[in-house]
C-alpha cells in the first residue's frame, strides 16, 4: 500500500518516554558491557520508505547512529531485512551497524523516541503529498508539527526536504518559512552539502523520479536558537 492514515490507531510499539527506549535492540553493535548504548541516534529519516537514504547515510556517516522511521508495516519489515543482510554481508567491521529502522508514526510519537535537541539532521524525502484539501493536516510538514521537530533538533540542526510534487514543495516552504525556529539555507549551501546530493539520488522515489525525468524540489532549513521567552 502506498498510503497509511497517520490519524488511525495502529498497533504500534513505542516507548512511554525516550528514557524507556531500548536502543540496544536496534543497534546491538553499540551495546556497552553494562547493557546501555554507547551513542545516541543523531540522524532521523522520517518516512524512510524502502530505506535507500538510510542505507546511503550509514556509510556516509559511519560515526553517527541513523534511524529510519516508516509507518507502513510491510515496508519497514523490508528495510529491516535489508539492513540485516547488509550488516551480515559486509566485510568491513561495523558497517551498517549504525543504521536501523523502526515502524513508527513520527507525526504522533516522535517525542517518545527523542529527547530535546538530540537530533542533528532530519530528512523528509518524497513524503506523501496528501493532495486532498481536507487531508492537509496529514502532511508531515505543518507549522504545528514543526514545533515538535524543532524540539528534537539541536540548535544548528538541519531539516532536509525533497519532493517531486511542486504543490507539496510550496506547502513545505510556506510552513517552514512561517516557523520562527527555522531559517532557509540558500542554493549555494545546497550545492555544497553532501546530504542534499545523497537524498537527490539515493532514495527509491528519487530514482523513480529521475527515470521519469521528473523534477525534484529541495528545501533545507536550519534550526535557529529559541527566542527570548
Amino acid at each position, binding site marked *: 500500500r502506498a498510503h497509511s492514515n497517520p490519524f488511525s490507531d495502529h498497533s504500534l510499539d513505542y516507548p512511554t518516554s525516550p528514557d524507556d527506549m531500548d536502543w540496544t535492540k536496534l543497534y546491538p553493535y553499540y551495546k556497552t558491557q553494562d547493557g546501555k548504548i554507547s551513542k545516541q541516534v543523531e540522524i532521523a529519516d522520517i518516512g524512510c520508505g524502502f530505506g535507500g537514504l538510510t542505507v546511503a547515510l550509514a556509510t556516509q556517516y559511519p560515526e553517527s547512529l541513523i534511524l529510519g522511521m516508516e509507518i507502513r508495516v510491510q515496508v519497514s519489515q523490508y528495510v529491516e531485512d535489508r539492513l540485516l543482510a547488509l550488516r551480515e554481508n559486509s566485510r568491513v567491521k561495523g558497517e551498517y551497524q549504525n543504521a536501523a529502522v523502526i515502524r513508527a508514526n513520527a507525526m504522533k510519537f516522535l517525542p517518545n523516541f527523542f529527547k530535546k535537541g538530540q537530533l542533528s539532521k532530519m530528512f523528509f524525502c518524497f513524503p506523501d503529498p496528501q493532495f486532498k484539501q481536507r487531508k492537509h*493536516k496529514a502532511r508531515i510538514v505543518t507549522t*504545528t508539527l514543526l514545533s515538535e521537530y524543532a524540539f528534537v533538533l539541536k540548535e544548528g540542526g538541519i531539516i532536509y526536504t525533497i519532493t517531486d510534487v511542486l504543490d507539496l514543495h510550496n506547502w513545505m516552504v510556506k510552513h517552514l518559512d512561517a516557523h*520562527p525556529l527555522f531559517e532557509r539555507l540558500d542554493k549555494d549551501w545546497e550545492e555544497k552539502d553532501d546530504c542534499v546530493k545523497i537524498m537527490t539520488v539515493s532514495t527509491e522515489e528519487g530514482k523513480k523520479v529521475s527515470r521519469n525525468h521528473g523534477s525534484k524540489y529541495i528545501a533545507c532549513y536550519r534550526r535557529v536558537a529559541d527566542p527570548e521567552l
Partner: protein
Amino acid sequence: MKHFYQKLVTNKKGDLLFASSANTVLVFEITPSGANLLTQWTDEIDPYFSVRKHHREVLQKYEDDMKSFSKQGNNPESKPKKPKMPIPGPGAPPTFTYIRGMRLSRNEKYLIILTDNDKAAVVFEISDKRANTADSSFSLVLIKRQPFSKRPSAVTTSLDDMDLIVSDKFGDVFSVPLMDKRAIDEKTLAPILGHVSMLTCIDMATDENGRQCVITSDRDEHIRVSYFPKSYVIKKWLFGHKEFVSSFVLPEWCSNKVIISAGGDNFVCSWLWQNNPGSELIGKVELSNVVEKYLDEEHLAPKKFQNEDGTLKEYCVSEIIPLNKIHKIAVIVEQVSAVFVLKVTDNGSLEYDQTIETPGYVIYGTSSDDTLVLSLVDETHSIIFYNIGDDGGIRVSEKQNQLASEIEKNRVAMDNDKDRVPLFTVGQLRKRREH
C-alpha cells in the same frame, strides 16, 4: 421527563452555580436558605447548523460553476449537479444542540461555554448588580459567539484573562481575544500549537522562571507544556500515561508546581512538572482496588476486545475536581455511583483518602472552598451538595433539600429518552489498536 445536568461550574465563593442541562445554562444563587434561579440562557441554534452551512457553501460553488458552464457553450456532460441538502435520514446517529463545555474566566467576570452544533465558544459577561438596591439585576450578556472549524474540546483563558484559548478535537489550539465583541472568521484563524491527536484538556500556568505556559493533554497519552504566547517553543512533555489522558488540574495549594492527571489508565498521576526532564512523575495512585466494586455491566469491554470469560471491565477517569480547603481532589470515574477522594500534599505526593458513595452515576462536579457539588443520573437526586468541613470531612449538606429542590425543578424538559445528550463519552477515547 427531564434532562440531567451535564456540566456544573461554581465560583470560588460558592454563591453562584452555573449548571447546563442539554442546551440551557441556568445560573443559581446559592444562599444559606436555598437556591434561586437568577437567569437562564438557551442555545436556540438550528440542530442542522453545520449541515446547512456546508450546503450553502457547496450551493455557492454550484452557482459559480453554472455561470462558467453557461458561458462555455453547453457540453451536457460537464454540467454541474445541483447539490442536495444532506439532512440525515432515519437511522442516522442523532444530533443534539447541547453545551459540551463550560468554565469561568479566572477573574470570574466571564462565562465561556462550548457548543456542539456550530462548534463555537460562546462568551458571556456576567452582569451582577445584586448588590445595587436600585437595580439588583443579574444577567448573562452575550459578548460573542466565536466559531471554529473543528469541534472545540476544551477551553481556558490566559493568566491575564485577555485571551480565550480553545483546543479542538483535531488537535489544534487557537487563541482569540476574550473581550473583543467581534468574532473572527474561523477560516482565517491559525492554530498557536497542535498535536496530531484529539485534545482533551487545556490550562495555563507559570513555570519555575515565571514564564507563562500552555499545557495540553491528548488521546495519545501525552501532556505537553509549551510556552505562551510563543507556543511554537515546546518546553517539555510529561511521560508516564499508558492510555489517553482525559483531564488534568493544577491544584491551587501546590502553588503552580503540581499537575494531577488521569484518563484511561487505572491510576492517577501527580507531576512536579517544573522538575528536570524525566523526573517529573512523582506520584501514582492505583484506583482499581477502590473502583472495582462499583463497576457493572456498563463497563464490560466491547465483544471484539473482550477476554475469553467475558469478564473484562474497563473504566476511566472523566474529571478531577480540586478541593482547595482540605488539599484533596475528587476523582470522577465514568458511570460509577461514587467519587474517589485523594490527598495531595503541597509537593505533589498523592494518597487515597476515601470513597463517597452517591445514589446514581456521577456525571460531573465542581467545587468552591466550602462545597462540592455533583450532578448525578438519578431522577430524584440529580444534584447533591456536600459541605467540606474544617476537619476535612465531606458530608451531604444539611441544606441539601432546600438547595436541590429549585435546581431539580429547573432541569430542562425532554420528550423522550432519545433526546438525552451523551453524558458518558470519555470511555470512547480508548484506543482500539488494529493492524
